[in-house]
């Protein structure tokens, strides 16, 4: 395995020139930095959720609001989508054909959208109980954190659509490849945040 392969799974720029390689390195590293900055945002929202959990102000509580089954299904959807994105990366890296790449991207997109559907359904049923963000500090911290992750998933899905169009438009040129790599990092990162949400928000709330 060349050093390049280990570095970024899926980074296979073929025989492009040195400058492109350098740019790829920078582009990916820059995106990592962005993710870490974003991670701070989520970390602080988690901490806030942790300290505001008791602030239910006599209103709905985690036990009355969380639907374990739904959260579990959402977890499965997102985990699986991370896996399918991985297969898409491999299809890109090893040049297994655009169709295969598009297929896995499409599956990932569907899983992402399904996740969003379940999440919106969760929110709707909370709303119907009167569990709005304006009800209590605890619910504020919930609605500050979980929908923000949902928003990320939404933008990730949008990004997948854009990349699918670009793949069929430009083929796999260097910029498409770099962007697919960044998208991959983003998608896997969202999965990590979700692990936090599943454990810290849902499971902790229900213990």
């Amino acid at each position, binding site marked *: 395995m060349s050093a390049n392969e280990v570095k970024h799974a899926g980074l296979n720029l073929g025989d492009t020139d040195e400058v492109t390689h350098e740019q790829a390195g*920078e582009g990916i590293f820059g995106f990592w930095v962005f993710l870490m900055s974003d991670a701070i945002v989520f970390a602080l929202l988690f901490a806030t959720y942790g300290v505001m959990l008791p602030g239910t102000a006599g209103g709905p509580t985690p036990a009355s609001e969380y639907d374990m089954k739904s959260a579990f299904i959402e977890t499965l959807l997102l985990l699986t989508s991370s896996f399918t994105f991985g297969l898409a990366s491999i299809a890109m890296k090893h040049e297994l054909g655009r169709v295969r790449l598009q297929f896995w991207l499409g599956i990932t997109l569907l899983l992402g959208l399904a996740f969003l559907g379940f999440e919106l359904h969760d929110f709707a049923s909370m709303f119907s109980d009167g569990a709005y963000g*304006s009800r*209590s*500090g605890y619910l504020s911290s919930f609605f500050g954190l979980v929908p923000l992750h949902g928003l990320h998933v939404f933008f990730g899905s949008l990004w997948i659509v854009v990349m699918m169009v670009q793949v069929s438009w430009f083929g796999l040129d260097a910029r498409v490849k770099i962007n697919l790599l960044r998208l991959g990092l983003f998608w896997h990162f969202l999965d990590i945040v979700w692990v936090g949400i599943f454990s810290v928000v849902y499971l902790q709330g229900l213990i």
Partner: protein
Amino acid sequence: MIVHAHDFFTLLGKIDLHSFAFVRAWRDPSLNQVIAAGAASMVVIGAIALVLLITWLKKWRYLWDEWLTSLDHKKIGIMYIVLAFVMLSRALIEAVLMRTQQAMAVNTPGIVSPDHFAELFSTHGSIMIFFVAMPLLTGLINFVMPQQIGARDVSFPLLNSVSLWLTGAGAGLMMASLVIGKFSTGGWSGYPPFTELTYNAGVGPDYWIWAVTLSSLGSTLTGLNFAVTIYKKRAPGMHLMRLPLFCWTALCTSILMIFAMPPLTVATAMLALDRYLGFHFFTNGMGGNMMNYANLFWLFGHPEVYILILPAFGVYSEVVSAFSSKRLYGYTSLVLATMAIAVLSFTVWLHHFFTMGQNADINGFFGIATMTIGIPTGVKIYDWIWTMFRGEVRFTVPMLYSIAFMMTFVLGGMSGILLAMPPADYLVHNTLFLVAHFHNMLIPGMLYGMIAGYTYWFPKAFGFRLHEGWGKAAFVCWVVGFYLAFMPLYALGLAGVARRTHELFDPAFRPWLIVAEVGGLILLTGLALLFVQLYVSIRDRENNRVPVGDPWDGRGLEWANAAPAPEYNFALIPQVHSRDTFAWRKEHDCAYDPPDEYRDIEMPRNSMSGVIIGVCGGLAGFGLVWHIWWLAALPVLGVIATVIARSFARDVHYTIPAAKVAAEHGEWLRLIRETRPVDRFQETSPANRGLAARVP
């Protein structure tokens, strides 16, 4: 509920006639309202005059092509500094108004109403931090750092432009608040619940929230950009331990930006949720907890003050070494100290709320962590002193600022250590003592550094030196003015005068207040002299040209090319062999050797994406402030569309052919052969054309 359904259908949201400062002054022509309307008219007249001037000079095209849409890091840097100067003029006038108010208002109401005074300290603080200090240092780093590491540009030139325009959008909102509506009265730290809807139903805190949010997004992206640039774009041979110190401080500042801006964004976003959707993050009651706001804000706020000071430390390191004609003493120590300050700055935020009620263990821990920062800071000061030792010190303007800095900053450090003692802090927290402390850090620390850097690198940017005499006159004002303006505040703080006080009741305070007022006016003069200096220097520019590019016998790579530098910075990316590479090359007589071959150079094309995103951001902010929902939503869609459209752009570079590079470089080499080198005694005379004589 907070959001009313009918709001969605109003075209202009909450704006009505009374929102305009002019209308308010018309209906109630008190001195207070007239001052407000005067400020508003300055903004409006200034803007109109600018537009007319540009139209009259037929410079729109030039401005658009050469500047606004430019992705050249040097131009972006200069635009940041121009933005800082515009905002500075406002914030300084506000400062002088505040000083005047306090000097006059001993047992009388003074010239501005309490509410107006609160707007003044809130805008002054917010502008100085977010729209003066941050753009100044971002601009300086933008301009200098790529040249120092031997790069052609930053890693993400378009992102750089986006950051600039986001900052500009925030500044625009600040300016809009003068004309339409009011600004927050909650100070630069915007503590809830005072800034919550219950206590502050107007648009003020919303202006603050969105202005600060836009600028902090810009800063986060800038930090990312700089950090990646320094990590990945160094010239071959430029190991980290060969980086000029300014780059080290730039790197640490960037890292702080990446990790410290998010807490601010989180805090302002939560406050916005509280205000717009009735959430209870920081409200009294309903499970809200304003203590978390203090916690989040200072998680940002403390690293922020080191974001401000570190680049200034970098400037001092460069300046002291250059004007002592000597290597920097203790390079490794300086690097370690810089990193230590950066990391430690994440461990002390609680010292801003020692008085909130946590237990002695926690206060003690954070107090000790705070004092620890004194050690690396002291190391730096001593390293600069020992850099002068056995050197040949030239008392040029930047060097004077550096020396004044060292001797004044330590006084602020002393008051900082006092504040770090929780029981002592209980007594002087929230008093003018604290105000004196931080101005003592910010003005002789950060600002002197920025002025020093500006004077030092100005010739590199524009090709001519600034006038020495006017510079020295301004320097005297800055030093005298600072001592007069802020030493009395230490005394008043010890006497128990609270900060943000609009009126005082003890005649014994009056002498101190008057001295401070005089100091404020002298500082204002100092700024005016800087403008005079700029004017005189532009007028006499032919006498002061330094086309060869090395007016101060500099040591880093930024001096190794022409002044102003070509857009691609280096004809050929240099190979670095040592620290202070350029000084080393001059000693070995190989500073101006022609390269073996020239190559084509690829540079990023201009793009208007940055402008569009910034303008959209500003409009969305304005829409949110005034609850004009369509105006809040459409620009956001515009941003998304721009980003997507841009990702389809393929032809984003242009090529400068090797022949053109060779011609330009050859021209410069010829100029060098024809130029007479000057020695250090003559460097401030017209004989200095930017070629330093070899010192035996």
